[in-house]
């Protein structure tokens, strides 16, 4: 009759382990530092000035251990005495910093720092007889950050590994505490749909025009100001009513082996020729591929698309799980031509020569499905009480810095006027993407049905 007691004792051990484990977990979390960037109340700034060999003076700023270089930062040798010049703005911790400089009558240059329009440092002297290439550094001046630049809550359908660094840069610049919820583009847009006007989000950042236009149609996206809408010229890359705007683009391309394919096909429609039998690949379950097939259905019709799909299958198209695996297969010599997005080549690590796989933009596809450009973009929530920070973030994405980031870091197409794509990519204009509203690509259901019908997916 004492069995239960004995049993209880036997089981005490795992219970203690369980309890200890839970306590450990709880205390570890309690000790973890709170998330979110804390804004520095004050920080030190210095001006650096360097005399170039041509007599111009190049100014930059140093703060927080980093060098900040304004876009306009050269004080020309030919600037006449008495004229005061101001550099372009660099932002740090929410303060707009500028360098001011004026040539004195004696030829020396006096310079200083302007923070949020106020001169906080004056009369630093750069002597006229300084040797070229010498860098002088001013004394440090303490600058006060704005009391509370506020925060910003973003629901991002774009991954942290893609845009996390860019968002950090924005935080650094503005001092705004940005909090991001990362997730799937469609799941997060639907979450906002379910939250309605109670949504904690200020901004939605997604990588699919469909999700953006869902928010617009649900009445949850707020109107964007004219200056933001004007930054992107292509009408297909923004909402007709100005409720969302693209921030970067990705192009459909063929990834080919130039060695094995000296004369690449002129159009995706040529891939059904016997010449390419057994040499072509696709990833039929990939979202970008499905968007491309949807575009083909919209532009060329159901019958042409079905015929093309069947032609590809009859041509022994090889099935891959992803874009990455196609690029790898071309490098490995397993595949000659794959259908992918343009940036996968740049994300793949090449063991040998980078010529093993190159992007091919088939000229015959101009204006057609084969030249499709899909976008990532943003919408500001209509319910946000945080408009100014949300708009500031959108302006940042469309600024030269943001667009350059997309070009160099995520290898996407910049979409705002003034920033050119990578030098090894053709310009957006010469690509001539089909002029269809990206939101017309929402019939994914029909595409999946078609792919299933022809046996491209099971």
């Amino acid at each position: 009759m004492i069995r239960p007691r004995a049993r209880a004792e036997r089981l005490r051990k795992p219970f203690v382990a369980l309890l200890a484990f839970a306590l450990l977990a709880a205390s570890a979390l309690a000790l973890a530092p709170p998330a979110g960037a804390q804004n520095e109340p004050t920080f030190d700034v210095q001006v650096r000035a360097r005399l170039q060999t041509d007599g111009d003076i190049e100014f930059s700023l140093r703060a927080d251990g980093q060098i900040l270089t304004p876009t306009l930062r050269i004080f020309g040798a030919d600037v006449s005495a008495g004229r005061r010049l101001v550099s372009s703005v660099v932002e740090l911790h929410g303060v707009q910093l500028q360098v001011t400089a004026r040539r004195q009558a004696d030829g020396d240059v006096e310079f200083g720092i302007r923070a949020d329009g106020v001169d906080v440092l004056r009369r630093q002297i750069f002597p006229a007889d300084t040797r070229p290439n010498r860098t002088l550094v001013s004394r440090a001046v303490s600058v006060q950050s704005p009391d509370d630049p506020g925060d910003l809550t973003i629901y991002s359908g774009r991954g942290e590994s893609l845009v996390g660094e860019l968002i950090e840069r924005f935080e650094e610049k503005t001092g705004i505490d940005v909090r991001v919820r990362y997730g799937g583009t469609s799941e997060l847009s639907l979450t906002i749909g379910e939250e309605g006007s109670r949504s904690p989000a200020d901004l939605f950042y997604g990588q699919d025009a469909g999700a953006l236009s869902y928010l617009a149609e649900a009445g949850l996206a707020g109107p964007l100001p004219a200056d933001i809408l004007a930054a992107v010229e292509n009408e297909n890359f923004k909402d007709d009513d100005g409720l969302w705007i693209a921030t970067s683009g990705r192009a459909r391309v063929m990834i080919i082996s130039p060695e094995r394919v000296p004369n690449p096909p002129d159009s995706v429609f040529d891939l059904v020729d016997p010449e390419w039998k057994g040499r072509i690949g696709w990833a039929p379950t990939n979202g970008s591929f499905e968007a491309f097939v949807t575009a083909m259905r919209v532009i060329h019709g159901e019958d042409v698309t079905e015929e093309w799909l069947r032609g590809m299958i009859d041509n022994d198209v090889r099935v891959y799980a992803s874009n990455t695996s196609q690029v790898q297969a071309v490098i490995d010599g397993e595949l000659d031509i794959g259908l992918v997005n343009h940036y996968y080549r740049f994300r793949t690590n090449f063991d040998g020569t980078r010529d093993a796989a190159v992007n091919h933009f088939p000229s015959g596809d101009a204006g057609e499905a084969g030249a499709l450009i899909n976008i990532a973009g943003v919408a500001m929530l209509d319910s946000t009480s945080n408009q100014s920070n949300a708009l500031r973030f959108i302006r940042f994405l469309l600024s030269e810095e943001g667009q350059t980031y997309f070009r160099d870091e995520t290898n996407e197409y910049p979409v705002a006027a003034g920033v050119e794509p990578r030098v090894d990519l053709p310009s957006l204009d010469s690509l001539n993407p089909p002029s269809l509203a990206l939101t017309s690509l929402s019939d994914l259901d029909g595409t999946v049905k078609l792919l299933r019908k022809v046996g491209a997916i099971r």
Partner: protein
Amino acid sequence: MSIVSGLAVGPRFRVNLPGIWILALAGAGAACIPLVYLIVRAIGADAEAWSSVLSEGTLRLLVNTAALTVAVTASCAVLALPIAYLTERTDLPIAAFWRTITITPLAIPSYVGAFAFIIALGPRGSLQDVLAPLGVESLPQIYGFFGAWLTLTLFSFPYLLLVVRAGLRDIDPAIEETARSLGQSAWGAFWRITVPQLRVPIATGSLLVALYVISDFGAVSFMNYETFTWALYSRVRSVFDLSGAAVLSLVLVGLVAVVLIVDWSQRRNARYHRLGSGAARMPRRVQLRRWRWPATLALVLLMVLALLVPVAVLFHWLSIGLEQGETFPGLWSAALNSVYASALAGGVTVAVAIPIAIVIIRRPGLLARMVERLSYVGYALPGVVVAFALVFFSLRVIPTIYQTIITLIFAYAVLFLPQAIAGLRTSLVRIQPSLEEASRSLSRTPWQTFCSVTLPLIAPGVLAGFALVFLTTMKELPATVILAPIEFDTLATTLWGHTEEAFFARAAAASLLLLACATVPMFLLFGSDRELRS
């Protein structure tokens, strides 16, 4: 069989726990929130959504889903029953190790497992590379029914295993010994005595597997096998149609109701606890003799497929990443968040499940039956539907807790309540009410009796329930993405984010860490909790 039901004599004494019904009804009520949400949303659906549900495609989806569910559940039972017996009742070498390691496949998310199988066993996968010198140019297609079945079987049989094993531990070996003394062979005793006694655990565990299969999206999407949940996700993703998705979900609820009715008709009102004086003692270990090594080999083969293949693929990716100097930011805090949230979810869910389990076992009747069935609703629905339901609910009822750890743990409890109940009931069903009566007669209050007698007795069930919820929470994705406090990254969300952006080395690191975080507590809980001598 007759021996088992022969035990049931006389009326059951009831130890009345005050407030037990309130607690049980509250728990079941919480689990019903998704159902209420679906009905609200479906009412707003247009006629087109309803007519598309009644189309021919829906019938095919139902057939596909049913076929996969039946096949996976059956094969999981075929795997789990012998493994449970081997690790609990025989002199299998290093049984403690096998006890733990056979549960770990549960910590591999089905999408990771499916992806690994495609890489390893696909038509031109690693296995084909190995077989290429033998003239094998291409392996048969893994996509479709076969791949989905294989993945789901290998990564969900531990659900059944955990429950069956907890049940097996609680069986009074005296009945088997009586059967042996009456001339039954060891096999005869197993089939005629042990298996029928395991009826409740097998049914409960099978239900867990079946409903998991119905709600899984990861494996079926990678394997391109069109099930109901697959169609629901693609509807949500492509047409952004919440009402249509709600209508489809309600059809899914109907399917689940059918499964629950089938399950119910399988259960009898048998009693499995001991009557009269005496208590169960440790069972004798069955000598495996010449079956020792074949049994070990079978386990090794199974674990190669269910654990080694995915782990090898993950290590392969990780090593590629390390070679290229890849960094892995944020992994440790994600691991900490995962363990913290999963441990909390395990504890809370078991606590919510205890009153429900007591009501089911001790107060059988229509109301108890309703409470039990309703508690399955959240578990059987795709995670994204439950997440949307809780967005809807918490923002309207208690907006201040929206997207805090409280909502998140609440969501986990709604999602995984049946797992905790399953773990508990197999233990609870074996407790002799007379023990509790004795405690009451010694002037303990009902709740004192519960704490000092009942709770220690159902400890194996508590552990099994905790382990099930802990492991499943570790890999949960949709509810975590939508409901976690902002910037509360877990290993599952990190893993998913990196997979989505094709940073496979980082994804592999997160997967492996997830596996480690899940395995270590399992070793603590199951590695050494019981030493048996034959």
